[in-house]
């Protein structure tokens, strides 16, 4: 092989990174070729000098401090990001519990405890079987539990959306009003959609009761968020 080939790998030979076979091959060539041997000597010296010349640059302590502060800030932001989900879920559970308690009280006052979740559960999971005569529908623990869980999940979704919007508004107060409108649209849109799909049920459950329950739930959720974010500013 010609010297051109060896020149390419001499610097790798200097670094000691050639495979054993290549090492032997280069070594035997160097023993025979004074020109390449000269390259090898030169490269060995150059490598040593380069190491000295390019030793790592000392970082100013102020830069290091700034970097550590930024990491700390990132950690705080991360904890906000972490908490928005749990915060939203907690808010959702609070809202769901408020409505559950509201209807528990109403049903108890009407002398039919757990009637509402039974009706809603039947509408949702049994395709409305038995809703023709809702007064004769017997209370079912299964329907109550299943409906309560779905109800809680839906509120958790609403809570997480609200919580995420709050995080966004905290970072950009100017989008606050838009986010508020979006959330109202989202929540009312959701309720209206539920009304449309659950039309038969709505004849059974009184409108003012549903509205009252939702307003109460919104109130408790807002109160919870307000407590968590007392400094929240909304700029139009």
């Amino acid at each position, binding site marked *: 092989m010609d010297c051109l080939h060896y020149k*390419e790998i001499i610097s790798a030979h200097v670094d000691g*990174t050639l495979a054993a076979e290549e090492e032997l091959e280069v070594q035997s060539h160097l023993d025979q070729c004074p020109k390449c041997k000269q390259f090898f000597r030169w490269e060995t010296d*150059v490598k040593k000098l380069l190491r000295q010349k390019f030793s790592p640059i000392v*970082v100013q302590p102020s830069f290091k401090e700034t970097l550590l502060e930024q990491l700390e800030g990132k950690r705080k932001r991360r904890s906000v990001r972490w908490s928005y989900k749990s915060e939203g879920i907690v808010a959702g559970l609070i809202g769901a519990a408020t409505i559950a308690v509201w209807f528990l009280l109403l049903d108890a006052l009407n002398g039919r405890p757990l009637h509402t979740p039974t009706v809603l559960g039947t509408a949702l999971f049994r395709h409305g079987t038995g809703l023709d005569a809702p007064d004769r529908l017997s209370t079912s623990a299964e329907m109550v539990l299943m409906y309560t869980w779905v109800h809680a999940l839906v509120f958790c979704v609403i809570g997480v959306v609200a919580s995420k919007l709050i995080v966004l508004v905290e970072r950009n107060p100017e989008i606050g009003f838009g986010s508020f409108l979006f959330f109202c649209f989202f929540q009312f849109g959701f309720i209206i959609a539920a009304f449309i799909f659950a039309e038969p049920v709505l004849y059974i459950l009184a409108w003012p009761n549903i509205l009252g329950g939702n307003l109460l739930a919104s109130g408790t959720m807002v109160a919870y968020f307000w407590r968590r974010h007392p400094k929240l500013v909304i700029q139009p």
Partner: protein
Amino acid sequence: MEGTTRLISPSKLFTFACKGKPALREDFERAAIPHLSHIYSAALYLTNDEQEAQDLVQETYLRAYRFFQKFDPETNCRAWLLSIQRHLFINRYKRKKREPELIDWQKIDEDYESMVLQEGRDERWNPETLFCSKAMGAEVENALKTLPDELRTAFILLDIEELSYEEAGKVMNCPVGTVRSRLSRARRMLQVALRDYALEIGLTRK
């Protein structure tokens, strides 16, 4: 009860609520901060600008912290940080730079060869003259700036940051053979640039 199989279970909801627990900052600092001066040096040699280098280092560390859970503690943390840095550099900083000029490799090879073979014939021609003369202060760094990005990166990763050929290959996303050839070319080009400077200031004669 069909519906229950499709519902999210309470335990899943709890896992979702607690998801995204941040990495321990102490672990990150212990692993990554000792490499700061190396990462900073590499950033400075890559960008040739102090402010840009600081921005690049900050971005590198913030990103590394964000993805710290993906770091394998069995591997070289410096190589991992350099790999993030190179990725950021290519995406954000390189766009600003103009296309590199065409390089006359034949001339560089000839110049390099004549320089090396001159040693012995002219006692003033040796690597020491090239790198250690007082007149060669910032010139070595300036010479490094003239290298195309790929060669400069190979040089920084191997000769300054002391990564292995394999690690550098992973950082640059290329085979070891390419790393070898880039490094060899980078060293040659750097020496020719220094030689030109030496001739220019009359340190030695051609």
